């Protein structure tokens, strides 16, 4: 299949510390196709952002990729060295971070930052670059783009700044955009605008998007498929409708139940007791077993690997057992 843009295979990330090696990402694999939005959800500390940083080669030292591979189309990008990676970043992979104020340079005008990116990555003249910059700002919905191009980031509001960041991420016509909590710092009314812009532009250009967020509402609206992470591992990966409406993994079930709904009034929210384990104390077997109501002997000892259940991939022994039982019944 040629339309797979990003392919992450058995990725491991670890942080060596004085007290031992912390495994932040422990063997995750997924793919993103052209024009697809893959949502990555999980609670803080699940490893969502580390996955994003590992893919674009911006892991904070001492963090390092200790196993697995990352492919952009057919090119392996996790071992190509900082210089080659810098050319991939920005050109082939665009990035959108949570805080729009810190991802723009406060000393340069918005236009200069855009044209600089365009000139670095695309073979165009300075005038052409400026024309493109104005066009991009118009596309992300900044009114009077031609005059705003000479404004500095502080002259924009939070929502407008995030639009500029989106324009910047798309400036070099990337094939993949990694958006790490792009709307978390924004108010709901502005959040909806930004999601609409992101979704429209990526759709039009057929850009693959990896959308990292803890907000299930945003995922439900935007993503095509969802990956649920827990303790640096994939708990469940599947089409958004299945994961939200009919989750399989006990953790996903708990997570969905704990979200207050706007529609009907539930008297009590489903709660998962306990908290996510610390990285230096990840339980043996399935990392979720101490909090799982359905855990049985095997969960304590053996780590489940993702298996296909309906249209999803689920890492849970419950379904493995079920399969064996079904097979036994048939035979």
């Amino acid at each position, binding site marked *: 299949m040629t339309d797979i843009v990003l392919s992450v295979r058995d990725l491991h990330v670890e942080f060596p510390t004085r007290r031992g090696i912390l495994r932040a990402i422990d063997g995750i694999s997924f793919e993103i196709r052209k024009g697809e939005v893959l949502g990555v959800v999980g609670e803080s500390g699940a490893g969502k952002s580390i996955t994003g940083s590992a893919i674009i080669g911006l892991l904070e030292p001492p963090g390092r990729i200790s196993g697995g591979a990352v492919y952009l189309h057919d090119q392996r990008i996790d071992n190509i060295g900082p210089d080659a990676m810098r050319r991939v970043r920005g050109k082939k992979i665009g990035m959108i971070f949570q805080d729009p104020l810190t991802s723009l340079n406060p000393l340069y005008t918005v236009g200069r930052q855009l044209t600089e990116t365009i000139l670095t990555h695309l073979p165009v003249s300075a005038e052409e670059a400026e024309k493109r910059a104005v066009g991009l700002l118009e596309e992300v919905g900044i009114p009077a783009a031609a005059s705003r191009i000479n404004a500095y980031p502080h002259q924009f509001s939070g929502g407008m700044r995030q639009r500029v960041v989106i324009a910047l991420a798309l400036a070099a016509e990337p094939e993949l955009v990694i958006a790490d909590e792009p709307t978390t710092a924004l108010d709901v009314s502005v959040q909806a605008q930004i999601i609409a812009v992101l979704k429209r532009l990526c759709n039009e250009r057929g850009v693959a998007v990896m959308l990292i967020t803890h907000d299930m509402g945003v995922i439900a609206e935007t993503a095509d498929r969802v990956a649920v992470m827990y303790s640096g591992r994939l708990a469940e990966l599947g089409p958004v409708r299945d994961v939200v409406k009919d989750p399989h993994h006990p953790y996903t079930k708990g997570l969905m139940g704990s979200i207050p709904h706007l529609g009907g009034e539930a008297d009590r929210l489903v709660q998962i007791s306990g*908290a996510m384990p610390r990285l230096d104390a990840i339980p043996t077997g399935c990392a979720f077993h101490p909090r799982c109501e359905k855990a049985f002997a095997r969960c304590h000892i053996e780590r489940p690997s993702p298996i296909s259940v309906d249209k999803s991939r689920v890492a849970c022994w419950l379904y493995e057992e079920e399969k064996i039982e079904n097979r036994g019944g048939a035979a």
Partner: protein
Amino acid sequence: MTQSALVKVDDLSRTFDVSRPWLNRLIEGGEKEFLKAVRNVSFLIEKGETFALVGESGSGKSTVAKMVVGLLPTSGGNIVIDGVNMVDPSQKAQVRALRRRIQMIFQDPYASLNPRWRVDRIIAEPIRAFEPLVPQRDVDARVGELLKLVGLDPRDGRKFPHEFSGGQRQRICIARALASKPEFIVCDEPTSALDVSVQAQILNLMRDLQDEFSLTYLFISHDLAVVRHMATRIGVMYLGSLVEVAKPDDLFNTPQHPYTRMLLDAIPDLDMTGRERDAVKGEIPNPIHPPTGCAFHPRCPFAYDRCRSEKPELKAGGNARVACHAVEDRRL
């Protein structure tokens, strides 16, 4: 209705002086500038009720909360709690007695606990402050009970705050708030720093405690789904004013004010009904120079001449109280 009202906020206002320093104004010219964070807000909270204030950042909801607990002086209006006027200087003694019955839970459980104190000392502080004569043994026993009440182990009292996760810290904050046996607790975004699964634990705990001790909550949040889950009545704030007050079912099923409609429309749809939505236009204007008339009129699709010149008052409309000319004139 006024009989059972525990908290009565009447025409509350707060202005901040945001002028540049005096010398700069003298040399470079320029006027004094004021930011009206809260403008003429009035509401009642009845005993045992959860009254929620929602709004986007800058709408003044936290400022109201701080004034109600007395952390911030008011610029105008009255706050009457159980018959005692908090802003009346002649009632100082009564206000002091009232203080122990009001507590607050803050947004950030990382910043609201003293990192150098052990948890038992943190939780005992309100007891020490309000009942200095209680013997140490009884204080210890009560701290242990409180810790158990919020789902922690009494032995956790010997630990320091950094040894706990965010959700556990918020439990400590709740235990501290309950230590002085309050009746009224102001919660300023108590769960917005927490993950959803932990948020569910804390919200459930707060509800259980409310039932057990018949607490009254003033609940501040920007998350409409959380508010719907917790509140018995909801006030929607926009740029320092209350624009709509209604029961959750009425507010979510038949929102009246155009801002409330817009806000409800903007929430990402977890139920995936695939509904089409009108794109929201614009952002909250600068509160130093708020629009004339109705503060919402530049973003409002239904605005007409009257909205630009005259500020609407909160008036009964349907099952809610709404501040909107269009609703009042039955244009909507």
